[in-house]
């Protein structure tokens, strides 16, 4: 299977590359739109700022190829890589997202505006059984913006921040699956999640 990692000139590309390599994959770096059609699965990493990332994807004509790819093959978006599939993003000014997920990306409204560290993930509908991951397993987060969904029916897992403040941890729709946490940085649980994605088939 050919797995591509989208390079949008920010992102922790090296980390995602290594974690896939450890799973026996030789990832392909996708740095031009036409390369997208050579792969079977696309991963869009995180660690970036929304506006800069969307501007890059638009200026380099990545948006339409990503949409076309998504119509047939699985895409995993990590952190910002997930957030860009929302309709609107507000980091460093407003940007229009890819719009596959009906939601907006906003600044965290917790006292501490950054969610950095490990959090437990609460799964919905026992989807974790397919992932071979226990409910309330912990994953690594590093973000200050989160996706606020219009409807929660695409949400597969939530994470609790301060007291009752919950944010979507995993969302999925059609061929798309996105995580707010970083599976590539989440040790054993993260590897299990990536393995799940590599074998993921739409229902």
């Amino acid at each position: 299977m050919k797995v591509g990692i989208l390079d949008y000139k920010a992102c922790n590309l090296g980390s995602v590359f290594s974690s896939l390599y450890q799973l026996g994959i030789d990832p392909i770096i996708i740095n031009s739109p036409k390369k997208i059609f050579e792969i079977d699965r696309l991963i869009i990493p995180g660690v970036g700022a929304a506006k800069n990332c969307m501007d890059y994807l638009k200026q380099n004509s990545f948006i339409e190829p990503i949409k076309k790819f998504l119509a047939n093959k699985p895409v995993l978006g990590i952190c910002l890589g997930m957030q860009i599939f929302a309709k609107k993003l507000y980091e460093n000014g407003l940007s229009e997202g890819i719009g596959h997920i009906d939601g907006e990306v906003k600044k965290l409204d917790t006292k501490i505006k950054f969610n950095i560290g490990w959090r437990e993930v609460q799964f919905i509908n026992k989807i974790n059984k397919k992932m071979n991951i226990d409910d309330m397993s912990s994953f690594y987060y590093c973000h200050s913006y989160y996706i606020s969904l219009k409807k929660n029916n695409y949400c597969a897992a939530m994470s609790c921040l301060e007291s009752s403040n919950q944010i979507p941890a995993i969302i999925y729709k059609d061929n798309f699956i996105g995580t707010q946490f970083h599976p590539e940085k989440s040790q054993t649980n993260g590897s299990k999640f990536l393995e799940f994605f590599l074998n993921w088939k739409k229902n």
Partner: protein
Amino acid sequence: MNFIRIIPSLLLSNKRLVKGKKFVNHINAGYPSSTCLALEGQKCDEIFLIDLDSYNNNKEPDFTSLNEISKNISTPITFGGGIKNIKQAKKVFRYGADKIYLSQILFKDKGIIYKIKEIYGSQSIVAGINIITHDQKYYLLEDRKKKIDILDHIISLIKCGVGEIKITFVNNEGSEKGMNLEFSKKIISNIDLPIIFEGGLGNVEQIIDMIKIGANSFAVGSMITFKDYNIYKIKQYLFNKGYKVRF
């Protein structure tokens, strides 16, 4: 309640890990890649990696070692030590770090924060605050004239867009005599960012003293390098005392 973060703080010099006291007298502390793999096995929550050679002597940071470590583990890495410009900052992320650590440069060119923030986001920038004590007063290590107010300095960095703070008590480094509780408390009550504390930890009771005043993230060096502790043992101890840690 969030998990207490236990973060090994590793110093890199000549492709080896080293450990010293009060920022000097460094001795060999192991091979980076295998040490990091062992630390991951001990369930460390992140890894802090500071390149001493580029911090002290204007050298290019050791991106080769960073890349090698990153290839072997899937634990978050913060890399820094003498980062001077955006070109180097980009390499930090390219070669497998998830966050960048800035300290000295913040006294010369705060503009680098804006540049990194625009590309990688604020959550990826950790500002290093090196604190020294003199006659029971607190100063910034880099502030030779002893004029800058520490809280003002931190607040100005937050305004520029850093996402996390690391406080290092330089005088306590390697001393194992505990952290400055009163001053830590002052910082915690005034700063609404995640804060990592480093410098002076010698036993787990000292970590608990800090948790009691509101701290939840700790960088440990001497404690795991030269003493009979490891990350797992520290976490087990905290867990037994009723604190929330991740295994």
